[in-house]
């Protein structure tokens, strides 16, 4: 009998469209991710094969997590409810079917369908990776095992669990509503417990076990997998992961058992309105005589009817449970998002209102859109679903009041949810003791910007429900719409004139407000609002009033409704829509150039193809730069006039001069005396001049130029935020011409390069490239230069550039500043202009100035302190400071970095200025960033490497080291571990995302995870092993030899040689490990015991395992024999997990994979183990210590 029911049900499921819709959805979504570069699931895959086991596992897990629960619920709930809904339950239950057979058949059929739907993912990966256009270099051989493993081990247990849970809920509650409510509750519970566990549970096994989706064990195990591992390894079915599978399978079985026992085989008693008659409740025998009433059918009455409908629909939404469930989910999400916020090194920022608005946009609006989709269906179908439609539709209220009232109610409720969001974030702000609430910003950011997004989307969903006249097709339309918005961009149909209801991104900066984004946004808002009006007019015509469903009939009704007023409204709406569209087009395509991202990439690629051949041809070198720059902030315009003095430093005459200029500027002229133009390619910004008389060796030449940047009107998508109303930050690369082919704008992404017919990767020049070291890392057109620049701006702003202020004056209602350098600088400078507050301080005789926005005074003193401490350390240990001033300048959050120019450090408002450092235990990254940037005054601005492998180690790694030492001096050695743990984590996960090849530190090819993250670890380990003084001695020597030197410029070989010179012979091998190879450890403590001696001291015995290996550039590992000095230590109990209480650390020579040590300590030990402070690069730093038994 079970078999019969199973077969019957399978047939039923296969007849229903649901299976095909879901299967196609699963297939296409995955196929897109695998077979195209347009859709990327979790970033570019890079060297990871498109059918790598890792990808297969990840895609199946992600798809089953996002869609699996809903799919499972749809099927198992349907399996139970179908009988109740179609009132066939009595048929089934009265026939001789046993309960267990009935349930088993039903469940098995449903579960089979759920499992089959997910095979769409499997087939999509198999097929997708075989598509002819997919680069076969990134497709591994077909192996069945990863598919089988992922499908049967990873997701089938998940799906069985979900099916069991919601089968139980559906069978026991017999309510579709409660079943779906429980789905929402399940997700809420899942997210909340994951967050709680993430923050409160250290134990990885517990973390892994408690995740029914198995995402945690997957994430933890694969966190640091290299490309090589991702291409070859499967998750090991043992340990926590195995227990996770067993645990949740058991839960599924238990739940099913409970369902089978508790389920009652009886006809549902509820439902069916008129089944029972009431016992006599007599209708009173009083005369009918109803009171006389006046009835009105004018506009006033219609308005009253409309309001009554709004009221009744609002209360219907308010009284429905899913609304509150989704809202609850959203509130939790946003409360967490707002409370935790963006953290850098675990330190959070002040809950500024614009960050709260951002949290709402990113973490709340999605839920509101779900509410909009769901309730658009509910509200349009409400009367029909409860069978009140005939009564309602026969009422004499105008049709517009009916749909208008419903739509208004929907929008009112959506806005109410936004109100709840604001309330939530305000509570977060207040709870953090932050009281600057900025109600206007909430109004604009949440109710206008987010509100319009929501409103337009709601209109679209409402319209879809009306037009399709089928609730589920309407919902499907929502999915199709979202996919289409992604697809349009992916196919580079990027103009927002046809991306329906997709308003441009708007960015807010405390410095610049909504700035230039505002008018653009408002125009698109108007444009699409008018379009929404057109849709509603169509919706009005098609609104289902009455019981006709055939489209021909609805068309006939629509014709009846299309009267003169409808015609007039439609005409006015369409005309205004077209007019606003024309104005937008004028701005985006006439005043500005509309180019899609692929067109821009194409231009970049063309530049490289056309002109890279000139890269190594000798050019004269700039020795002096002079520029007058006028900034007009309110017009977002800049005019620059400047000149370069240059010298032919080569030994041969130079015939041609190549001038490169950013092609996006509005106007550019250049005068080269004694030369004529051979070619002038404005599109690619490359001009070739030919001297009438070739420039002789040692000859000097001055060229002059003018540049104009005008930002007129608005663009489809703002690509440049350097010149703005308050907070201009523009550098010489954008504003001034360059000599020779610069390579600045070359495409980096291998996928994009390939698409444009370029070699997939540009590698840096080899470290031994003698020609390349003739250029510094920063420039190919100059060595060390002098800069003399005058910058002017509006009278309420201050304008700054590197160099010393020579003179400041006002003229023609503008402010002028004249800056001049007094020691040579690299040709890298910038101009900033804003309404600044200034805080001044001194370090010895060096003035320190912080230019900041009035809204961000929080950490200005901290920055000053950081500069002072840095100057202390660097002048004492490296060399004197070459400038006579340090300035830090705030710029808007359009970019998030801090950057060091000569004596000038522009610093984004989003990092540091708003960090909340009130908790003294948190990492003071303001202090760190300050020290790093000041460090660059030495590492880049005193010594700059040649443009070859390892160059960024000389700048970034050394700046990191400098900052680490300043921090260590300030906070002590114990606190460094917390910082270094972040660095280790980011290095290890950075390896997994490597697109090309992981290089050893000294050959780093501008790879941030190596030159910053590994750099920190390596340099900290080096000074830990050989001593800070020795390292600093080596650095002093390096600076002495190379400061302001070049060409040729130094390389990491020179620096590593200095390190070797100060390293004792027995530790020379360590230099190989740290700088010349990719060496990792896997240290682990397997046993830690202690006994108390008679004298009260403790004897601690630890057994440790140690492995050391070298990795290839793709992560293939080879083990190497151990012969290393590694810390063995005992830690006492500590209050704070990041502040270790070191009882004893001894450095031991480790030569065997397993070794046991005995140590004696005075106090009671808590933990003991190997490398307890995580000095080494360790694949799994968490198991280094163990609690002492």
């Amino acid at each position, binding site marked *: 009998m079970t078999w019969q029911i199973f077969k019957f049900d399978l047939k039923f499921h296969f007849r229903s469209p649901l299976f095909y819709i879901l299967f196609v959805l699963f297939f296409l979504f995955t196929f897109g991710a695998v077979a195209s570069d347009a859709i990327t699931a979790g970033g570019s895959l890079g060297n990871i094969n498109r059918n790598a086991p890792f990808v297969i596992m990840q895609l199946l897990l992600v798809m089953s997590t996002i869609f699996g629960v809903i799919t499972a619920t749809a099927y198992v709930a349907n399996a139970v409810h179908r009988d109740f809904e179609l009132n066939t339950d009595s048929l089934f239950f009265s026939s001789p079917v046993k309960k267990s057979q009935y349930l088993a058949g039903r469940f098995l059929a449903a579960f089979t369908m759920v499992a089959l739907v997910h095979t769409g993912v499997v087939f999509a990966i198999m097929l997708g990776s075989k598509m002819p256009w997919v680069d076969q270099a990134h497709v591994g051989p077909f192996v069945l095992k990863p598919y089988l493993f992922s499908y049967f081990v990873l997701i089938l247990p998940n799906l069985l669990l979900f099916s069991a849970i919601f089968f139980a809920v559906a069978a026991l509650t017999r309510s579709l509503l409660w079943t779906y409510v429980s789905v929402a509750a399940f997700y809420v519970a899942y997210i909340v417990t994951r967050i709680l566990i993430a923050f409160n549970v250290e134990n990885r096994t517990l973390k892994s076990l408690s995740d029914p989706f198995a995402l945690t064990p997957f994430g933890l195990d694969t966190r640091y997998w290299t490309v090589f591992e991702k291409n070859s390894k499967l998750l090991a079915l043992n340990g926590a992961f195995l227990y996770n599978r067993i645990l949740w399978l058991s839960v599924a079985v238990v739940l099913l058992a409970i369902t089978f026992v508790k389920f009652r085989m009886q006809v549902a008693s509820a439902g069916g*309105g*008129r*089944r*029972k*008659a*009431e*016992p*006599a*409740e*007599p*209708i*009173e*025998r*009083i*005369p*009918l005589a*109803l*009171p006389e*009433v*006046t*009835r*009105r*059918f004018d506009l*006033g*009455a219609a308005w*009253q*009817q409309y309001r*009554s*409908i709004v*009221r*009744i629909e609002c*209360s*219907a939404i308010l*009284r429905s449970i899913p609304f509150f469930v989704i809202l609850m989910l959203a509130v939790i999400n946003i409360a967490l998002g707002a409370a935790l916020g963006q953290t850098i090194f675990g330190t959070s920022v002040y809950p500024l209102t614009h960050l709260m608005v951002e949290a709402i946009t990113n973490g709340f609006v999605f839920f509101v859109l779900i509410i909009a989709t769901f309730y658009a269906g509910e509200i349009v179908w*409400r009367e029909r679903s*409860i*069978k*009140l439609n*005939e*009564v*309602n*539709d*026969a*009422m*004499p*209220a*105008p049709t517009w009041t009916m749909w208008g009232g419903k739509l208004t109610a929907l929008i009112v409720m959506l806005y109410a949810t936004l109100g709840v969001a604001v309330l939530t974030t305000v509570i977060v702000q207040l709870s953090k003791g932050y009281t600057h609430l900025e109600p206007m910003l909430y109004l604009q950011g949440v109710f206008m910007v987010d509100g319009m997004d929501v409103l337009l989307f709601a209109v679209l969903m409402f319209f879809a429900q009306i037009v399709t006249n089928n609730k589920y097709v309407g919902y499907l339309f929502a999915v199709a719409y979202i996919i289409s918005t992604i697809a349009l961009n992916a196919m580079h149909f990027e103009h927002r004139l046809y991306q329906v209801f997709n308003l441009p991104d708007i960015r807010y900066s405390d410095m610049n407000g909504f700035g230039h984004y505002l008018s653009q946004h408002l125009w698109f808002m108007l444009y699409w609002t008018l379009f929404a009006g057109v849709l509603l007019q169509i919706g009005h015509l098609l609104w289902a*009033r*009455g*019981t*006709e*469903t*055939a489209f021909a*009939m609805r068309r*006939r*009704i629509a014709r*009846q409704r299309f009267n003169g007023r409808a015609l007039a409204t439609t005409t006015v709406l369409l005309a205004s829509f077209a007019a606003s569209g024309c104005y937008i087009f004028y701005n985006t395509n006439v005043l500005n150039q509309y180019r899609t991202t692929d067109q821009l990439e194409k231009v970049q690629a063309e530049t490289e193809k056309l002109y890279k051949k000139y890269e190594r041809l000798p050019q004269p070198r700039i020795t002096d730069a002079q520029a007058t720059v006028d900034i007009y902030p309110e017009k977002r315009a800049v005019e620059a006039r400047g000149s370069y003095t240059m010298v032919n430093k080569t030994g041969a005459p130079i015939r041609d001069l190549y001038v490169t200029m950013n092609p996006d500027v509005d106007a550019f002229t250049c005068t080269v005396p004694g030369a004529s133009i051979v070619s002038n390619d404005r599109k690619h910004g490359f001009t070739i001049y030919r001297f009438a008389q070739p420039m002789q060796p040692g000859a000097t030449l001055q060229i002059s130029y003018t540049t104009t940047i005008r930002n007129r009107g608005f663009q489809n998508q703002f690509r440049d935020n350097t010149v703005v109303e308050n907070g201009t930050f523009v550098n010489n690369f954008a504003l001034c011409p360059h000599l020779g082919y610069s390579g600045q704008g070359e495409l980096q992404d291998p996928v994009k390069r390939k698409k444009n017919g370029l070699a997939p990767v540009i590698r840096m020049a080899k470290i031994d490239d003698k020609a390349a070291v003739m250029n510094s890392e920063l420039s190919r057109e100059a060595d060390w230069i002098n800069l003399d620049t005058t910058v002017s701006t509006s009278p309420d702003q201050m304008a700054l550039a590197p160099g010393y202020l020579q003179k400041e004056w006002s003229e023609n209602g503008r402010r002028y500043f004249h800056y001049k350098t007094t020691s040579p600088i690299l040709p890298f400078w910038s101009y900033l202009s804003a309404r600044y507050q200034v805080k001044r301080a001194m370090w010895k005789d060096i003035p320190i100035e912080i230019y900041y926005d009035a809204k961000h005074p929080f950490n200005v003193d901290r920055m000053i302190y950081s500069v002072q401490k840095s100057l202390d350390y660097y002048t004492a240990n490296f060399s004197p400071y070459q400038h006579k001033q340090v300035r830090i300048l705030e710029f808007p959050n359009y970019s998030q970095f801090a950057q060091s120019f000569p004596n000038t450090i522009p610093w984004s408002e989003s990092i540091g200025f708003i960090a909340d450092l009130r908790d003294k235990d948190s990492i003071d990254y303001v202090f760190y960033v300050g020290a790093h940037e000041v460090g660059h005054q030495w590492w880049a601005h005193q010594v700059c490497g040649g443009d070859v492998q390892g160059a960024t180690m000389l700048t970034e790694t050394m700046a990191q080291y400098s900052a680490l030492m300043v921090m260590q001096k300030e906070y002590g050695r114990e606190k460094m571990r917390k910082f270094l743990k972040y660095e280790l984590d980011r290095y290890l996960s950075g390896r997994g995302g490597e697109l090309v090849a992981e290089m050893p530190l000294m050959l780093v090819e501008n790879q941030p995870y190596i030159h910053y993250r590994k750099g920190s670890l390596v340099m900290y380990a080096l000074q830990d092993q050989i001593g800070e003084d020795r390292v600093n001695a080596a650095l002093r020597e390096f600076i002495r030899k190379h400061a302001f030197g070049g060409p040729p410029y130094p390389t990491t070989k020179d620096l590593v040689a200095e390190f070797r010179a100060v390293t004792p012979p027995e530790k020379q091998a360590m230099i190989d490990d740290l700088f010349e190879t990719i060496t990792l450890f896997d240290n682990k403590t397997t046993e830690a015991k202690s006994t108390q001696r008679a004298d009260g001291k403790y004897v601690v015995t630890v057994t440790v395992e140690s492995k050391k290996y070298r990795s290839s550039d793709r992560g293939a590992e080879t083990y190497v024999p151990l012969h290393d000095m590694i810390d063995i230590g005992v830690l006492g109990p500590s209050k704070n997990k990041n502040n270790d209480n070191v009882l004893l650390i001894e450095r031991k020579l480790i030569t065997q994979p397993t070794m046991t040590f005995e140590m004696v300590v005075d106090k009671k030990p808590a933990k003991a183990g190997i490398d307890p402070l995580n000095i080494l690069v360790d694949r799994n730093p968490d198991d280094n210590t163990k609690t002492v038994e």
Partner: protein
Amino acid sequence: MSNELRIEGLSKTYPNGVRALQDVTLTIPTGMFGLLGPNGAGKSTLMRTIATLQEADSGSITLGDLDVLREKDAVRRILGYLPQEFGVYPRISAEAMLDHFAVLKGITNKRERREVVSALLRRTNLYEARKQSLGTYSGGMRQRFGIAQALLGNPQLIIVDEPTAGLDPGERVRFHNLLAEIGENVVVILSTHIVEDVSDLCSSMAIINGGRLLMTGEPLQSIRDLDGKVWKKMIAKEDLDDYQKNYAVISTKRITGRTLIHVWGEQQPDPSFEPVSTSLEDVYFSTLDKSAKGEEQAA
């Protein structure tokens, strides 16, 4: 306004091919009008078409000067409609819901609305339960609520589709009284498959089946027309087939193990048959029977 409702040549075919109405021509005078027919006869289609909820393929409906099929808004203003299928918002009180309907019916004055709502709730004996949410109402209470909303705004055209289906006998009687009271000056169309509803209440009636109008007239007259032509006999169950072959059996009823048959005949078929005092039920069944036979012959 006491105008008769004229239906002329009304036809409707659904997209699935079902011919719900076929050339129906009918005049409905002021007063109670019974529309009788089995389930699926086309009654509801006709009702919904008059109630502006459905389009007709061809034909016309006029109420006095009013073109019902075109001037929907005007029709809705004088309409009271209780459809066959009728649900309620579960989480709202009867009073609030009725107040909302009153607004939709154009009763804009708040005081008047309160009075009429309260009067209707009293009249339908729901006043005690007016604050209760409609979701908790029993079937009978819901039906009475449905009647209350249909009577809002003194409708001139009242359409009630199978209104007594869920009511117990006592309640049905009271409902009939209520309808009879209002039905004096306005057009009331009562669609039902229960013959007694019509015989108790209606001054005129029509029988439809298969989308066709089979007969129209006054119940009393049609009973009189059939007088002396219907005969009854108690027979054994096994003999039923024979009788159905040989006589025009219009209805059968099981009584204590035996079967009572009514047979149509100009004369007494044979002495074992006894004359019957004709009821509307006989009219109804003989009409259906004749039309079914007619169909068979046509086929």
